[in-house]
């Protein structure tokens, strides 16, 4: 069996989450990978160095077409012949492209798997993680996205795969790429950070939300947010942790002023250690927190910083 993994990269650097998808794919068979975009050549080089990758297929495209679902899905469907499974990490890009490719192949996709039982049987969360379904696919080919936090990523270096060029087929037309606006941040990527400091409704406003930064700086942490904080405009949506945002599982997750709605817990309850600070002792977040402090976060934040500075 050979598996094709569609990789996400940023400016040629393969995302850690995609290395988790390769780890999952390695459990199913030999692994080939596909990289697309203007920086595909650099990405292909990094991908070729990932242990376990046999072949890298690269599509260098500077027209913006590789940003669109239509041609990329058509390409995956075209390439599918040689593969039993098509996998990707559950990124916004993969969620856009893979179901479309699955439709072209007459396959029911299996999104967001957290475990592999055998080549046909997978475990995936449903109802925002309130239940885990084990499903068996009757399709000849499987189209799967992988929840990165459930698979330990493979190493970035040590392999030596061959690189081949492939061409992007024409899509149905009618779809044009206009622009992308990415927000810049010096902090680690939310989904792969070792520590995440998140703020919720309790942060009160945009200005106060920034008070999390000194704490995150001290811990080398990524900053996250609850849906309430995002909806109220304290921070932009790419910070959102939860069912409809990012799914994270860091070693340490610090929830400041987050009540702990089901939809938020779905995005972080697999963290190794959870800390919650909330003034409401009945907040549901305390039911999943390893360590909780009931109190005013604006008092506790500077105390935490001072304590970290002490012996650190």
């Amino acid at each position: 069996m050979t598996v094709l993994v569609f990789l996400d990269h940023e400016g040629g650097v393969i995302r850690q989450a995609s290395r988790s998808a390769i780890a999952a794919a390695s459990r199913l068979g030999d692994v080939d990978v596909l990289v697309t975009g203007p920086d595909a050549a650099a990405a292909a080089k990094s991908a070729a160095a990932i242990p376990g990758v046999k072949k890298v297929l690269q599509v260098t495209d500077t027209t913006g077409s590789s940003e669109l679902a239509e041609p990329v899905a058509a390409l995956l469907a075209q390439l599918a012949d040689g593969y039993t499974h098509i996998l990707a990490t559950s990124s916004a890009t993969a969620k856009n492209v893979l179901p479309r490719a699955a439709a072209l192949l007459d396959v029911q996709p299996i999104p967001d798997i957290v475990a592999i039982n055998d080549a046909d049987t997978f475990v995936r969360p449903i109802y925002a993680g309130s239940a885990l379904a084990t499903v068996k696919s009757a399709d000849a080919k499987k189209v799967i996205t992988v929840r990165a936090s459930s698979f330990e990523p493979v190493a970035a270096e040590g392999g030596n795969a061959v690189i081949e060029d492939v061409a992007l087929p024409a899509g149905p037309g009618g779809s044009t790429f206009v622009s992308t606006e990415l927000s810049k941040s010096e902090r680690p990527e939310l989904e792969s950070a070792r520590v995440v400091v998140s703020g919720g409704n309790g942060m009160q406003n945009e200005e106060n939300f920034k008070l999390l930064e000194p704490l995150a700086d001290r811990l080398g942490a990524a900053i996250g947010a609850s849906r309430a904080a995002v909806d109220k405009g304290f921070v932009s949506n790419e910070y959102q942790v939860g069912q409809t945002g990012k799914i994270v599982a860091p070693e340490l997750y610090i929830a400041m002023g987050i009540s702990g709605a089901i939809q938020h817990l779905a995005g972080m309850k697999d963290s190794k250690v959870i800390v919650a600070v909330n003034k409401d002792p009945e907040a549901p977040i305390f039911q999943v927190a390893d360590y909780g402090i009931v109190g005013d976060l604006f008092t506790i934040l500077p105390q935490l910083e001072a304590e970290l500075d002490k012996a650190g």
Partner: protein
Amino acid sequence: MKVLVPVKRVIDYNIKPRVKADGSGVETAGVKMSMNPFDEIAVEEAVRLKEKGVVSEIIAVSIGEAKAQDTLRTAMAMGADRSILVETDVVTEPLAVAKVLKALVEKEKPDLVILGKQAIDDDMNATGQMLAGLLDRPQATFASKVEVADGAVTVTREIDGGAQTIKLALPAIITADLRLNEPRYASLPNIMKARKKPMEKITPADLGVDMTPRLSVISVAEPPERKAGIKLDSAAELVSRLRNEAKVI
């Protein structure tokens, strides 16, 4: 122009779902059901386009059991003009639903199909993309802004790390993300009016679609329960525990 909006009846988002004792699924009997929240956003967007004079007719569609007509009535109370119930007791998988919708699109010829980006029961996030693929039409998923002008629609999409803008020629498929709009509540007079709006009832067989699921559910289980930990009195104690007990800093 005409818009088709598919809506799904799911367990209300405020209810915590319970796994059935025999592990065959999640209990829905006697549980409050509502329209999938992302579908409400899709309906709202269609209604706003109608209010702007861009759209002339909104057709709501639901595929599921007979009670899905409640969801269609809600869509019509929000502003959909008529509805179609495609009745089936089979588990509705995105592939089969996309095939039903494709048949309806070929019949009704809408310029736009606006769907919710995912249903909060199976969390598949696939139907819109699959419909676009089957129809070989352009797609804009996870929309946070939609502007229709001159036979095209410009959509701002939520992507990892930011936003992307793409332009689609009509007819096209859009899936709605959370921040596209805030859906309205249906007013009492509109709920009354919705009772008189037309609802067509058909079956997947009428459209020639085989609903047989491709995924069989082996089991459904509760996730491992996380135990509540301990409450601490001070930041000093927390830092000390994180350093010496949990060893994460």
